[in-house]
C-alpha cells in the first residue's frame, strides 16, 4: 500500500473536518478506556502479569535465533513448512505459489496487519485470485475500498449509517436490496454473504498472535470465529507472521494472553483462542491437508539491533491508540500507513523510513498515556523522542525548525546567557501583556497562537523560581 504518511498534516486536517469520523471517534475511545480499567481492576495480578509479559518477550528477543530455529524444527516435525522471507516481495511470491499449487480462485482472509504490510490483496487480485476479508470490520473496509484505521477495530471510523449505505450498495447485486438499519441486521447479512465464501475458498490466510517454539504451533485470537472458519475449511491454510511473534512455551503465550484482551477490549479473554499445529492427522475427521507458515522479517531483524528493539515486544492490542488524544482527534487514516497511533509513530518510520514518516513521531503531546496502558510496557514516548532526535540529526526537519532548535540548543549550553535572555524576555512579555493577560498573536509564534492564546507571564522564569526555592 502506498504510504501517505508524508501528508500527515493534510490528512489530519481532513480528519478533523470529517463529521462522520468525529462522531465515530468520540464514541469509541471512551468505551475502550472504561472497559480496560474495569478488566484490570478485576485482576489483582494485572500489573505483575504485565511485568512478566515484558520479561518473556525480552528474553525471547535476546535469543530470537535459537527460538526461531526450534520453532521451525517443531513445525517440520508436525508435518508443516516454514517459509523464511526477508522482504514483503519474497513473502508475496511464496504465497502466490502456494495459492497456485492449490489452484486457488478465492482466498479467505482473517484480519492480519502483516498482510496489509505486504499489500497482499492488490497483489493477489493482479494474479487473478480474489481475496475475501472475513473479519467484519475488515470486510467493511474492503467493500469500501479503504484501509483499516485501527489495528483491532478496522472500521472504527465508520458510523452504522455509513455501513448500512455501503452494504445496501454492494449487496444489492447479490439480490439483497433492502437497506438495513439495525446493527444486528447488518451483522446477520454479512454472516449470510460470507458463509458460502468460506465454504468455497481454496486457501485461507490468517495472521498469528503467537508462534510457539515448544510445539511449533501458531495461535490466533478472535471474537467472531472468522479466523477459525478461515483456517479449518479450506484445503490449504497459510499462516503469515513476523519474526517477533515467537514465544518459548505454551505457558509463556498464556501469560501474554492474559494481558492481551484485557488491554485491547477489556474482555477477560477473547472468545476464540486457537492453537494450531501442523496439518490434519490421519484419523482426523476434518481440518486442512497442509500447513504453511510464511515467516516475514521486513526490517525486524535490523530493528532488533537498534535503539527501537523494545517496540518488537508489541502484541498489537491497540491500547495505545485507544488512549491517544492525537489518534482520538485525527483518526487512524491520518497516519498514512498500516499502523496508526503511538505504536505506528514508532514502527512506521522504522519500517518505511523516517523520510516518509517524519511527521508521525511529532504527532504526540507526550502525555504518556500510551506507555501507561501498553501491556508490554513499551516506552513509546521515549522511542518517539529518539526518532525526533534522528530527524534533527539527519536534517529532515524544515530549515526554520532546525535553525530555531539550533539557536535554542546553542543558548541552552550557555546557562548564564540563557538565564539573562529568558529573564529579559519574560519581563518584556509580562509588561506587554499586563493589560489583557493573554496574547492572541505573537511574532515568530504564529503557529502556536493560530489555534490558542498564550497567557501573559506573570512573574519570573521557571529557572528563577526554582532557584528561589518556590518549587510548589
Amino acid at each position, binding site marked *: 500500500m502506498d504510504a501517505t504518511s508524508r501528508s500527515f498534516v493534510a490528512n489530519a486536517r481532513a480528519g478533523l473536518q470529517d463529521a462522520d469520523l468525529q462522531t465515530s471517534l468520540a464514541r469509541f475511545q471512551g468505551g475502550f478506556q472504561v472497559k480496560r480499567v474495569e478488566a484490570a481492576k478485576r485482576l489483582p495480578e494485572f500489573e505483575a502479569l504485565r511485568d512478566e509479559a515484558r520479561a518473556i518477550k525480552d528474553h525471547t528477543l535476546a535469543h530470537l535465533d535459537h527460538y526461531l530455529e526450534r520453532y521451525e524444527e517443531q513445525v517440520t516435525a508436525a508435518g508443516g513448512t516454514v517459509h523464511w522471507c526477508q522482504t514483503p516481495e519474497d513473502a508475496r511470491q511464496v504465497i502466490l505459489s502456494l495459492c497456485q499449487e492449490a489452484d486457488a480462485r478465492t482466498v479467505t482472509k482473517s484480519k492480519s496487519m502483516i498482510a496489509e504490510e505486504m499489500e497482499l490483496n492488490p497483489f493477489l487480485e493482479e494474479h487473478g485470485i480474489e481475496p475475501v476479508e472475513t473479519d467484519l470490520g475488515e470486510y*467493511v473496509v474492503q467493500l469500501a475500498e479503504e484501509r483499516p484505521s485501527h489495528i483491532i477495530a478496522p472500521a472504527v471510523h465508520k458510523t452504522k449509517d455509513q455501513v448500512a449505505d455501503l452494504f445496501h450498495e454492494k449487496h444489492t447485486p447479490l439480490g439483497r436490496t433492502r437497506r438495513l438499519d439495525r446493527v444486528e441486521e447488518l451483522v446477520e447479512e454479512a*454472516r449470510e454473504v460470507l*458463509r458460502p465464501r468460506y465454504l468455497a475458498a481454496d486457501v485461507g490466510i490468517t495472521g498469528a498472535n503467537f508462534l510457539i517454539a515448544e510445539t511449533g504451533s501458531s495461535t490466533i485470537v478472535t471474537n467472531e470465529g*472468522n479466523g477459525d472458519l478461515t483456517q479449518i475449511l479450506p484445503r490449504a491454510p497459510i499462516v503469515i507472521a513476523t519474526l517477533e511473534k515467537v514465544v518459548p*512455551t505454551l505457558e509463556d503465550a498464556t501469560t501474554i494472553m492474559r494481558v492481551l484482551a484485557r488491554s485491547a477490549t477489556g474482555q477477560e479473554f477473547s472468545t476464540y483462542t486457537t492453537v494450531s499445529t501442523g496439518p490434519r492427522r490421519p484419523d482426523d475427521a476434518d481440518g486442512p491437508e497442509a500447513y504453511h507458515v510464511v515467516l516475514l522479517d521486513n526490517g525486524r531483524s535490523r530493528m532488533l539491533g537498534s535503539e527501537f528493539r523494545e517496540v518488537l515486544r508489541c502484541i498489537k492490542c491497540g491500547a495505545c491508540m485507544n488512549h491517544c488524544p492525537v489518534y482520538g482527534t485525527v483518526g487512524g487514516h491520518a497516519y498514512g500507513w498500516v499502523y496508526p497511533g503511538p505504536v505506528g509513530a514508532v514502527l512506521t518510520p522504522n519500517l518505511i523510513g523516517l523520510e516518509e514518516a517524519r511527521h508521525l513521531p511529532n504527532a504526540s503531546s507526550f502525555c504518556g498515556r500510551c506507555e501507561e496502558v501498553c501491556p508490554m510496557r513499551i516506552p513509546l514516548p521515549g522511542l518517539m523522542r529518539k526518532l525526533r532526535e534522528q530527524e534533527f540529526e539527519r536534517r529532515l526537519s524544515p530549515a526554520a525548525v532546525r535553525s530555531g532548535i539550533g539557536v535554542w540548543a546553542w543558548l541552552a549550553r550557555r546557562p548564564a546567557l540563557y538565564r539573562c535572555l529568558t529573564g529579559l524576555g519574560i519581563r518584556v512579555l509580562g509588561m506587554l501583556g499586563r493589560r489583557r493577560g493573554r496574547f492572541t498573536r505573537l511574532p515568530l509564534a504564529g503557529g502556536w497562537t493560530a489555534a490558542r492564546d498564550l497567557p501573559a507571564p506573570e512573574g519570573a522564569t521557571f529557572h528563577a523560581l526554582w532557584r528561589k526555592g518556590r518549587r510548589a
Partner: protein
Amino acid sequence: MSATGGRDAILGSIRRSLGRGPLDEAARAALDERLAKPQPNLVPARTDIPQDERVELFTSMAEAVFATVDRVSGADAVPGAVADYLAQHNLPPALVMAPDPALDAYPWGERPMLAIRRGRAEEADRVGVTGAVMGFAETGTLMMTSGPDHPSSLNFLPETHIVVLPAERIGGAYEEGWAHLRAEGGADADGGFMPRTVNLVTGPSRTADIEQTITLGAHGPRRLHIVIVEGDES
C-alpha cells in the same frame, strides 16, 4: 529466493543485531531445558478455590459472556436437557454430534424424537453437540481438541453449539489444560503432544465492529449452551 537462503540471511541478521554468533552449547542447552520442562509463570489466584466453587465461578464467568449454562445431575439427565433446550429455543430436534465415546455413553435412545447424526459439521447443520476436554473457571473457557472423536468444524459451523461437560472436568487456570495435554500425549511428549487444533472457547461468537455494539453470532455460533453434568465419571 530459496527457502534456505532466506533462513540463513534472517538468522545472520538477527545475530548481527544481537552482536554475537550462534549461541554456544551451554547457552543452547539452557534454553532447550526451558523448552523441555515448561514452567507456569504467575497464575492468577482467583481459581485457588475448592472444586465446587470452581464450578460456580466457571458458570458465572461463562454466563457473563453470554453463554447459557444448565447444571444437571447424573448422566441419565443429559439427553433430556439437550432436548428441552432445543424445544425452548424452537430449534429442530435434529443435531450433529461428535463421534465421542463419552457422548455415546449417554442414554440418547430415551429421547427417540432426537435425530442424531455423528460426524463433522456440514453446511446445513443447525445444532452441534460436543464434549470438551476441560473447562477453566478462570474465565468460563472451554478447551476442545480436534481428533477422530471431535471434528473442529462442530465448534464453528452450526449456529447452536451445545457442550456437555462433566463437572469433574472443570479446572482452574489454562495452565492445567497444557499439563493435561502433555500428560495425555504420552510417548509423543516432545512437542509432539499437541492435537492439530486446540480451541479455547469463551462464550458464543461476537463482534463489536459496528459502533462498538456487541452483537452475537458474527460468524461462529450464535448460541453456546453448556450442560454441566454432576456425578458423571466419564
